[in-house]
Structure formats: structure tokens, C-alpha cells
């Protein structure tokens, strides 16, 4: 058994947590000494108190945002993967459709969100559509790249053995694309959350939302700054957890063979 401090897993968690604690302590002590008023910039203890005080309403808002995020993420993964498979079937399809995927990516979601919210009556659905649009592109581009990045030697081997198109897809292209796909998942999970929050802001200004973004807007109107920070804290935490979940998933699937997930052996 190695000492705790030499264990890589422990250090990877303990080090950032220690930095966080130090930063929070400095924030708390500094703001106390300078007596910054709560309505200008709250201290960590104020935010924590608000988190407890507004617990039920914040939690309800979190669930709303989380639902939109997860729905959008799942939709983006399914749609993005299907589109990527379509792209690699023929160069013509990819060449004619890829610019539109880029178009989708470069158009700011804030700019199209009002349109979607007006067009789609169901708020939940309109928010999900907005977030999906944001989360879609990394899945499409990464999966397409992965499906195309076939080891030429292996491709030769498959061709020589007259492997069918389907066998080549299942046995060669799909496993080879997995590392790229998981890279896409990591980016996309964060973007789904961003998309959901941005769309909620747009919808929230019209009073038609109840997610965390709406909590931030509402707290702003009432100058309840600690509640603003508490909502922000929950959004950040959600993002971090989503990312960590994707990292864990890709580790679980790829750890046996892919360099990105295998530790150097002593």
C-alpha cells in the first residue's frame, strides 16, 4: 500500500480542492476585512446561507435546467451520430451538407432563441431545441473525423479479405471512432448546459421559464445578489459533474486499449 500522498488519484482530487479552499478562505476573510456590502458582492458564507434558505426553489429550478440539458444532450448525441454516419457514406452528402452544419454552429444561439421560442409553443421543447443546436456540432464533427480516421493498414487488411461494407463499419470504423466520439461528448455535454441556460435567459426575459437562469434574472430584479451567486454556483457544479461523468464514461470504455486513457506502465 502506497502512502496516500503518492497515490495519483488522491492528488488529482486533493490538489484542486485545496486550491479551492484557500481561494474561498481568502475571499471570505478579505471581504470581511474590507466590509464589502452583501448587495455589491456577497461572501461565500452569504452564498451558502442563501443556498440553504432558497433551497427548495433553487432545487426545483436546477431540475428544470438539468432536464432541458440532458434532453438536449441525448438529442444531440443521437442526431449528431446519425448525421456523422450519413456524412461518411458519401463524400457528396458531406460536401453538400457540411456547410450547413457549420452555419448552425456559428450562429449565436442567443440570436435564434427568440425565434424558436416564438415558433414553438411548448417552452420546454423550445429550450431543448436551442440547447440541442448548440450541442450538436462537436458530435457531428468529431464522430465524422473518427469514422474517417481509419488505420490505412487495417483498412487494407479488411479490403484484402473482402470484408463487407457492414463488417468494415462495425468492426473497423466504429471502434476506431470511439476515442473521437468521446472527445465530442465531453465538449457537447458542457455546451448542452450552456445552450440550456442561454435559452432560459432569453425565455426568462419574457417570463416564460423557471430554470436556474430565470432564478438569476429574478434575483437580479430583486437585488438578491447572494441568490444570484447561489444559482450560478449550481450551474457551475452541474457543468463540472457532467464533464466528470463523460470523462469517467470514456475511461470505462477506452481504458483497455486507447493511449489517451491508459496509464504508462512502470
Amino acid at each position, binding site marked *: 500500500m502506497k502512502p496516500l500522498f503518492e497515490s495519483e488519484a488522491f492528488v488529482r482530487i486533493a490538489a484542486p480542492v485545496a486550491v479551492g479552499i484557500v481561494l474561498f478562505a481568502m475571499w471570505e476573510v478579505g471581504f470581511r476585512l474590507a466590509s464589502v456590502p452583501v448587495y455589491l458582492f456577497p461572501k461565500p458564507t452569504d452564498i451558502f446561507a442563501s443556498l440553504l434558505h432558497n433551497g427548495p426553489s433553487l432545487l426545483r429550478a436546477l431540475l428544470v435546467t438539468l432536464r432541458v440539458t440532458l434532453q438536449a444532450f441525448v438529442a444531440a448525441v443521437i442526431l449528431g451520430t446519425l448525421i456523422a454516419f450519413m456524412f461518411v457514406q458519401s463524400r457528396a452528402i458531406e460536401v453538400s451538407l457540411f456547410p450547413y452544419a457549420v452555419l448552425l454552429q456559428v450562429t449565436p444561439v442567443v440570436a435564434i432563441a427568440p425565434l424558436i421560442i416564438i415558433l414553438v409553443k411548448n417552452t420546454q421543447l423550445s429550450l431543448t431545441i436551442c440547447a440541442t443546436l448548440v450541442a450538436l456540432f462537436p458530435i457531428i464533427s468529431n464522430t465524422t473525423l473518427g469514422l474517417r480516421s481509419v488505420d490505412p493498414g487495417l483498412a487494407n487488411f479488411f479490403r*484484402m479479405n473482402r470484408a463487407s461494407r457492414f463488417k468494415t463499419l462495425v468492426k473497423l470504423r466504429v471502434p476506431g471512432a470511439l476515442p473521437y466520439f468521446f472527445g465530442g461528448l465531453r465538449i457537447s455535454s458542457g455546451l448542452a448546459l450552456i445552450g440550456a441556460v442561454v435559452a432560459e435567459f432569453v425565455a426568462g426575459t419574457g417570463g416564460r421559464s423557471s430554470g436556474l437562469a430565470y432564478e438569476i434574472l429574478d434575483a437580479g430584479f430583486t437585488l438578491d445578489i447572494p441568490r444570484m451567486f447561489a444559482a450560478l454556483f449550481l450551474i457551475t457544479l452541474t457543468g463540472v459533474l457532467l464533464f466528470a461523468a463523460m470523462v469517467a464514461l470514456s475511461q470505462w470504455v477506452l481504458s483497455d486499449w486507447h493511449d489517451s486513457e491508459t496509464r504508462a506502465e512502470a
Partner: protein
Amino acid sequence: MRVLLPLEPLDQTTRQTTADGAPAVEVLSAEKVFANGARGLAPIDLSIADGEFLTLIGPSGCGKSTLLKLIANLIEPSDGRLLWWRGDFAQVGQEGRRLAFVFQEPTLMPWARVEANVRLPLEFGNMPRATADPKVAEAIARVGLSKFNRHFPRQLSGGMKMRVSIARALVTDPNLLLMDEPFGALDEFTRNKLDDDLVNLSWERKLTTVFVTHSIYEAVFLSTRIIVMAANPGRIFRTMTIDQPQPRDQGFRDSPKFAVYCRELSTWLAEASLQSAGGGVS
């Protein structure tokens, strides 16, 4: 030592066939001109007898890999044609007419265990697992990796990966084995070890083998016939027959005859290089 005269392009008279049985492969005035206009191979005539161990050797750019790929039907000749067991490529793959290729790199699937990698060619033919598994186990055992059948390629050394690649070729029970510098990246000790195994293997299974290498020692040790090629354009320069009993062992490497063959082959290779640089007879 029987030394044949240099083969002239299109010269049908020097084509070799063993007296007994039909040749495994016949290359009939096949040439290769690449898309950029470069002449990869001048028209080549070559007959590969059943059970022969033929090695292609020559300076880089002499078209030895191109010739091997033509034989594997990985590329098509620009002109001329090839015959496999006196027929076209469509009937290759039938019982007794199987072909396997071992690449320069092991080209294993990094996400699959050794046994899954070796099973792959059988899966292309949709062979049921129950039938395939004993064949897979036997092929892995033949290359001495039974203990590693649940390992992933990244856990194996370069030589072991190459063994897996050979097992994957053997699992289909091939008659014609084509190898493109398979041991080029390995250290000499490992290479000698694998050469020893290969000599036994091709003898046991009565394989017809076409082997590409840069190593004079490897060529002499393994082959029943060596074809020295020259470049600009790629062509057959000379042919050497190694008239020694099979299967061979370390005793052959240590014998004075081995040294004689190597010296002769080395001289020929030097001449082939000179001709290649000067543009040769083209």
C-alpha cells in the same frame, strides 16, 4: 549453386515452372505505371511454383513491394495479367487456393484482444464461433502466444505483435503467404527467431511464400529462390536458387555455404544498385 541468367523483360523462355504440378502464381508481362507517370514496374514475367519460398530483394524503388501487391491483387497491373492457380483472382479464397498477406506493420486492431484479432478473418466469412475458436487457439499456439490470448496489442512487444499478425494470416489455413518486410522493424535476435519459426512453418504447412526483405541473411536463410530486383524502372535483375534442404536451422546459418551465398547476393545487390542509379537498361 545454380545461377540463372538475368531475366529480360518479356522474355518468356526464362519463365520457371517446376516440373511437378501447376504453378501457384504466374505473372504474365505485368507492368505498373503509377498515376504520376512513374514506371513502378517494367513488364515482368515470373512463375511461382507450388511450395516455393520466393524472396524479392533489391534497392529501394525497385518495385518489390509493388510486385508483391500485384500478386496480392491489392493493386491492378497497368498492362499484362496475373494468374493464380491457373485462374483469375475471383476463384482465390476457395479451399486449397487461399491467400494471406502479412504487412510491414502488425496492423492489429488496438481495441481487440489477441484472440479477437486472430479470429477476424474467420468472421469475414461468417464462420460460427464454435468452429472458429479451435482454429484461433491453434493458430495462436503455433506462434507460441497461447498465454497471451487475452492480452491487448499494446501489452505486447513488437515481435509478439508480429507473431499475432502471422497467426491471423495462418488461421485461414492459407496456401499462399505473402509477406512485405514483416520483420524489418525488429532487432536481429528476434528476427532470427521469427525466421526460424517461419522456415518450419512454411515447410510444415507446405506453404507457397513470397517474401520481401532488405536483409541478405534473411533472404538466403529462408528462400528456395531469391529474385534480385533493380530500379528505374523496377525489374528483375537476377535470380538465385538456394539449393539447400528444408527445413533449415541455425546449422545452415553457421555453414560456409551460407557465407558464400550471402557474399554472392551482396555483390549482385551492389550491381543492382549501380544499375538502378544509372537508369539501367530502360
